[in-house]
């Protein structure tokens, strides 16, 4: 497909830690979302009902504090949707569909909440 340029094949290493403490680390392609990285690798704690449209608030994650400053600024829509998560939002809450993986996020750790729906 040449309408859109293919995403680069670079990856960043991302660790998803479940509420129960199970830790899984994957190489997630740069340019895809943190949500896609989780879902494609079978992280079941990320539900992502709407498929990444920032409309369902079921891909809620808690981002390790050290990486928060490296993330793109939260848009108003995501901020408002975070008011609708099942597990109450924390200062480090984000919707993983709105976080684009970049090389600088290599090594990032995110925690998934106890439940999404």
């Amino acid at each position: 497909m040449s309408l859109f340029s293919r995403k680069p094949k670079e990856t960043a290493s991302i660790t998803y830690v479940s509420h129960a403490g199970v830790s899984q680390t994957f190489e997630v392609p740069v340019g895809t979302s943190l949500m896609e990285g989780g879902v494609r690798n079978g992280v079941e704690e990320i539900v992502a009902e709407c498929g990444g449209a920032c409309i369902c608030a079921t891909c809620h994650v808690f981002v390790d504090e050290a990486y928060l400053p490296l993330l793109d600024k939260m848009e108003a829509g995501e901020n408002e949707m975070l008011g609708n998560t099942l597990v109450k939002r924390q200062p480090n809450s984000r919707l993983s569909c709105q976080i684009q993986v970049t090389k600088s996020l290599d090594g990032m750790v995110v925690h998934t909440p106890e439940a999404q729906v």
Partner: protein
Amino acid sequence: MAAGVVIAGAGQAGFQAACSLRTEGYTGPITLVGEEAGLPYQRPPLSKGCLRGKQELDEIDLRPVAFYEKQDITLRMGERILAIDRDARRVYLADGEGLEYDYLLLATGASNRRLAGPGALYLRTREEAAMLLTELEAAERLVVVGGGFIGLEVAAAATALERKVTVVEPQERLMQRAVGPIISEYFRAMHVGHGVEFVFGEGCTGIDDDGAVRLTNGAVLPADMVVAGIGVTPRAELAVAAGLSVANGIVVDDYLRTADERIYAIGDCASFPSRFAGGMARLESVQNAVDQARCFAEAVCGRPRPYDAVPWFWTDQFEAKLQMVGISQGFDCEVTRGDLASGKFSVCYFRDGRLIAIDSVNRPADHLAGRKLIAYGGGITPEQAGDTEFDLKVAAQTIPG
């Protein structure tokens, strides 16, 4: 040994039903039968992210194959159920193989309505989306037939790629079935502002060999590519053949069950009683598919409850994210909340003084509050709805339960 659950259709509804059965603790066999080859995938990105270059078609699978193995869900993809033998509780696949069931779930979806002749592209499957993207590469002029969600999402995406787009809509306004006139007009003006042209009140009578589109008024619109998004027909043929009741979809009761207590229907193919619609409703949305799937799974696991989720929908076009909650059809009063010129506003719909729906443009907080308010049955007045100082979120929080 239990025969298990057979699910006809591996779209969002069928997929979710399989997942929710396991979440609810079902331990019998689950077989998910889907017509398309490949893993079950999400459809919304086909007309949204994938057309905008934000997602790729090979990256929209709902779950990886390992998930189905781990959950012990048997996938029968690229296969089709041809008949139901209700007495034997068995379905037959195209090759004659029989699958027995304790419960059969019809999640067969819908098929696109088609124009009378050839020449148009449609958008429902991953394959069709790939075809559309390929043709879009070479096309300069597009005609989109149908000013509903799909047509307008295609129009917006193609315009963003600097294609010249004309939308033909037989009705007098856009997205007429789903939204009120204020939203229709806002979206018309927004599309026009981006260079989209519209022809209202005319249909398409045919497409010439050179691709030109003929309209009911005799006009001819030159086009390199025609995309039609003119509604759907529920896939109810299996139910019809099995003698189940069908009226704009497979008819089910409050519990999403057909007249056969072993057969349920959910998602785009099901017509169910809805207090939000004030009668039978058939909804085409992710929310409806997912919430009905959960309701079905609970019933199979011995915890039946009437289906009563508040309907919500969304569409992305240019800079506008439109989120809809409730069913606005039949409203007698529409109240604008916020300033249209700011690009962030909501329209609240009332019937007999009761809030029945909210359409929000780039105002997700109104939408979220609306889900609670409308599920509750209203709770605010038209005066409050129009007053941006009145906090909908606070009003929603004061609702019992």
